[in-house]
């Protein structure tokens, strides 16, 4: 039996009929064509699927689409505004915070959340803040640099 959901995704309001078991990540990727968030584990361990619901970072592989009913969802595609990259995106680019790019949309969303909670994090706080997001390429060092650079830019 399908359920109707009302959800705002990247500022656009939608009405959709979904199976109750449809995962939010599949709704975003396959129904809405928002393929920025990725699936790396389906078990909420890797964080590649991280998006925001009502301003809080969640792993969308462990959320049903029906749980997003009546809420605001932000994906990596909605982060840049008017053609301007978000400071976290810009910093990942400048600091070489990505290689294959697969974890990157989730990593950027987690980093954005981290900076919203702590505008001037230490190296240890950054590492702790992105611990739920796995990267196999970078060894995290350039990601740490990127988050520091983004903090400086946002704080300036």
């Amino acid at each position, binding site marked *: 039996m399908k359920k109707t959901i009302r959800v705002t995704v990247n500022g656009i309001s939608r009405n959709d009929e979904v*199976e109750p078991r449809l995962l939010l990540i599949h709704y975003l*990727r396959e129904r809405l064509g928002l*393929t*920025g968030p990725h699936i790396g584990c389906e078990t909420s*361990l890797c964080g590649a699927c991280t998006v925001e619901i009502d301003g809080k970072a969640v792993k969308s592989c462990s959320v049903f689409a029906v749980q997003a009913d009546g809420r605001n969802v932000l994906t*990596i595609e909605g982060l840049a505004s008017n053609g301007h990259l978000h400071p976290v995106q810009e910093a990942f*680019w400048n600091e070489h915070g990505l290689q*294959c790019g697969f974890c990157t949309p989730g990593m950027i969303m987690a980093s954005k959340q981290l900076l919203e909670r702590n505008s001037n994090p230490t190296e240890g706080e950054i590492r702790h803040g992105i611990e739920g997001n796995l990267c196999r390429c970078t*060894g995290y060092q350039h990601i740490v640099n990127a988050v520091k650079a983004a903090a400086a830019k946002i704080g300036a």
Partner: protein
Amino acid sequence: MATTITKPETLVGKRIRRKEDPRLITGTATYVDDIQMPGMHHACIVRSPHAAARIKGIHVKAALELPGVTAVFTGADTKDVGPVPCGASLPGLRVPHHHILAVDRVYFVGHPVAVVVATDRYIARDAADRIEVDYEVLPAVADPEKAIAAGAPAVHPEWPDNVAFHFHQEGGEVDKAFAEAEVVVKERITSQRLIPTSIETRGVVADWNTGDKSLTIYSSSQIPHLLRTLLAMMLGLPEHHTRVVVPEVGGGFGSKLNVYAEEALMGFVAMKIGKPVKWIESRRENYLCTIHGRGHVDYFELAARKDGTMVGLKLKLIQDLGAYHQLLTPAIPTLSVLMMPGLYRFKNIRADIAGVFTNCVPTDAYRGAGRPEATHGIERMVDILAAELKMDPAEIRLKNFIQPEEFPFSTGTGLIYDSGNYDLPLKKAMEIVDYKGLRKQQNDSRKQGRLMGVGISSYGEICAFGPSPATPAGGWECATVRVDPQGKVTVGTGASPHGQGEETTFAQIAADELGVDLDDVLVVHGDTAVVPYGIGTFGSRGTAVGGPALYYALQKLKEKITKFGAMLLDSESVSYSGGCCTCSKTGKSVTLGEIAGASYRAMKLPEGEAPGLEATYFWEPPNFTFPFGAHVAVTEIDRETGKVKVARYVAVDDCGRIVNPLLVDGQVHGGVAQGLGQALYEQAVYDDSGQLLSGELTDYAIPKATMMPWIESHHTETPSPVNPLGVKGVGEAGTIGCSPALVNSVVDALSPLGVRHIDMPLTPEKIWNLLQGGQQ
């Protein structure tokens, strides 16, 4: 901080942020799972839950009855496809027939048995759960040493000894060296099975055009062209009707340097149903069914004189192959043998490999592929010898290094090391960490009862695979450079990257040679319909083999540009630089854009020249490259918990000339993270019945951000003489250098307790047990 720098500055050597990043940071890149096609179906694969079993029956009716299910195929349907290819050959190698779906028997947990095809991802999965398979479970063996013991179950009944091959290599006078040696140290050293864990799993979309009778396979692969050749063979298709497109690839690390059953299976399915079909590997499948790495049990004997001069090395290597040979499986341990003398002068070497079948997923190339195992072995043995002789680990290395004047140096394993200065990175690393000061600090901390260790690894590697005769499928690379009528440049490379950043580094090389802006160069790759045949990106070969191919294509193109320039300027005295052809007599010049326009308009052509502005070059490397370096790790052990803290990590790598230091740092960091993962955390664990216990990210510990130390990355720059760019390759250096540095450091910390060796991973449990006076 990186900046975008454009001409007239030279771009090679600059920290330049990547051209590929804008699509990756905005979520607009296209990976395999992002591909949608009209009428696309979804496949779900039913896999064996047993490591060894006979298939007595497969019941598919209930699955077919589910609305939305289009087809179910089993091994009976696919038995004429394939087999899954093994590209490596060794004398007497036993090669089991590797069907794409099991026919009457399964050989490892995860072995594909049937495939369900449905209109929806969820329905395919539901239907797969409705398939019942009757198995007669058979005894299995998952440990290579148990597999070659008497009475072990036979993985393949036709070969009851479970040995796929024996390989012997010998150089110098080994028996004489050991007879005359003043000291011989022996140790059993393992390099445990690892799971590559690219964050993107594998995935395939297959699209069959019934009218053209042509197949397009979209796959997350490191080797688009080799995949095309081998898939065409497996599916009985003409190669010109087979196209492979490799879109964005979310990491490979060797695991996608392969040809897998599922790639051919999706081609088969698409041809049967006449619709596009997608299969995306789950993480669980990725751990069960994508190749693993390492899997060595090594017995080393190192002979030396009392002054620390090493004179000979023996190795008995037991390689866990798994149940089948994937593309390069049996070749990987032979690379360990090639690299076993490390950077040291002795030439008396004997190695015996036993390649052993087990009821596990096959091992194959994982970052470093045979060389981390070899380096771990020799670098551990050197430390064990130093401890035996009460010598300093740095001193014993410096005493035995091949010296700069000895190059080119023929090793006991038949390689020719072309160049090197091995003292350089080690001395630099020692200076950076203040080695003498560290040893003093260590003495002081020991007096306080603290467990501090300093570990060195001096590594060498074989990169830039490689001269074609030394590789299974050609070791050259190709590049095409095309200047369009606007004067903009497109570079096509066969060395299809997957995160290494060649869209930037190759653009730097092309922009420098052609004197154009970085933004005027586009690098394309990964589509066999777009770029000429190439080999791929693996074995630190992208820049080291693909780069020179590009360089030579650019030289060829510049000759043509100059001829057009001379014609347009009506002068013989013309040279090309800074994006213009200039006449040295009149000072007049024409731009690349004007030349390109004239070359396509072709109102007039230079004598003997064809219209258009394009050049292709296939480059065969004359030798491997041999990067080297030294890593130093400072550790401290928590006595209460056995936990290792990496207090300092210094890497000094010599990868030859550096094209983009920002990207090289990234490669070193990532490489070290994977070496550190092996040293401290990661292990693929099978139980005795062949069940993979570390089958999810919950049970297989790849490093998280909090588990990584700050890596101090430095370089020495000794250009390679093998190619005109002087580059050597850096993708695997960090991984190769890291694990012995860490283990040497931890053993050094524990040496006052009489500890001489610990096998990886150095888990707190293992170390805590040692601290209690027990066994690891």
